[in-house]
């Protein structure tokens, strides 16, 4: 329980939200959920925490804008839909964050941000500056120009990179299950949520079966991989169900919700 309690003091938090959380199974956006997410994040920002939002969903939104509701095929179509959808998505986020009087910024990253030391430093400085101005950066991959799906692969690994880049205390990943289960709950009725993970072992990694929804690309495998990357950098990760963004508050009250991947870090970082 002590390990959960330390989440209360998490100052700098990366929230990762995926397409499957932001949209209904039919591919259309869930505006109410986005509104709630904006309210929760704005409130946390008011508490004095630093928030960064990693959001996918551009391709799904772009498809919706054009009235296409099937998973698009072909790289250039995906990139075109991403260009349409990112514009639309950031507009919608701004609308809901504006209602909470919270300023947001848009940051689109390519992998060379990680590999090019100067770009790395620039981006790090920019994020730091935005946070110091109480602005919430909304981050996505720059799908239009990146050698798509080859660079970050999925937004789970992007969120881990962002957590490191921003020197975060905590990464919270919203997904469509309640956390990591001890077995596949669809098959095994005794399956339980694993509340705390101290070490990501090969057998634990085996528990994560890849899942794919209509528009999303991430499953539990990529989430555990992201948690592993964060853990190595002393960043805790929590995986929770994104259906009700208000449970982020409960996580930050130290309550036993979702799966907590514990890093070795004992102390809250100095920001």
């Amino acid at each position, binding site marked *: 329980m002590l390990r959960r309690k330390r989440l209360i003091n998490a100052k700098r938090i990366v929230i990762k939200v995926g397409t499957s959380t932001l949209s209904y199974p039919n591919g259309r956006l869930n505006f109410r959920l986005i509104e709630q997410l904006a309210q929760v994040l704005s409130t946390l920002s008011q508490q004095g925490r630093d928030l960064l939002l990693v959001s996918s969903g551009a391709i799904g939104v*772009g498809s919706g*804008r*054009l009235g296409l509701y099937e998973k698009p095929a072909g*790289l*250039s*179509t995906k*990139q*075109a839909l991403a*260009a*349409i959808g*990112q*514009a*639309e998505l*950031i*507009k919608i*986020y*701004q609308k809901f964050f504006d209602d909470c009087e919270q*300023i*947001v*910024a*848009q*940051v*689109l*990253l*390519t992998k*060379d*941000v990680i590999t*090019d030391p*100067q*770009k790395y430093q*620039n*981006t790090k*400085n*920019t994020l*730091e*500056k*935005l946070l110091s*101005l109480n*602005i919430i*950066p*909304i981050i996505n991959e*720059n799908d*239009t*120009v*990146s*050698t*798509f799906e080859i660079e970050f692969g999925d937004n789970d690994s992007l969120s881990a990179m962002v957590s490191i880049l921003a020197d975060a205390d905590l990464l919270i990943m919203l997904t469509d299950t309640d956390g990591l289960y001890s077995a596949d709950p669809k098959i095994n009725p005794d399956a339980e949520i694993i509340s705390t993970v101290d070490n990501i072992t090969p057998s634990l990694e085996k528990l994560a079966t890849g899942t794919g929804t209509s528009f999303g690309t991430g499953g539990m495998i990529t989430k555990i991989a992201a948690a592993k990357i964060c853990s190595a950098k002393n960043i805790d990760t929590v995986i929770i169900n994104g259906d009700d963004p208000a449970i982020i508050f409960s996580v930050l009250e130290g309550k036993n919700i979702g799966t907590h991947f514990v890093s070795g870090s004992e102390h809250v970082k100095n920001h």
Partner: protein
Amino acid sequence: MRIEIATLLGQNGKLDEKKMDRLAMVLSNLKNSGKQILLVSSGAIALGTAKIGFKPDLKNFTDMQAAAAAGQAELIRVYQNHFGTYNQIVAQVLLTNDIINIPGRMEHAKNTFDTLLSMNIIPVINENDVVSTSDIELDDNYPLALNVATIVEADMILIKYDDNGKFLIVHRGEQSSLLVNNENELLHELENSYNKQVLKEYKNKSFPSSMKEIIQ
């Protein structure tokens, strides 16, 4: 089509909604007439500064990038709203100038642009200031327009010259470009250029390399 947001600012430094509306109308109309339009627009830092209410130190890279990140979100929203009036969908494409040098990336951008244009969408393009290491949205975004024109093999670059409806038409291979006084002249000239097959003649020549060259 390249604009600097300065030509769209009113005297009070705020965006002039009428001018924005007019630009969206002219471009949507050109697109409807059968042209393929890509819009290169600066303005992220100006809008970001207004939005976050802090004055960035113009010599401080980080200040400028933070303002740009907040402002780009605002900029694309404003364009979406105005183009929306004319039922025109826009897309956002942020490029860094090194795109020309990174293998694969230029091709990806070209494919994306081609696909967007084939879907009748107007891409709105700006520098990805947050990650770029140089040329952060300086006064002159002609180099970016030139890069885009190169990537998509454009026939011409239009420059919104001032806020009185003047446009500069830059052809390939021409030392002196053509200044038109209003939207009618612009449309007329575009039709003429097209009919006279001037474009074909210039196909293999390059655009002027800088604004300096054009103004001369």
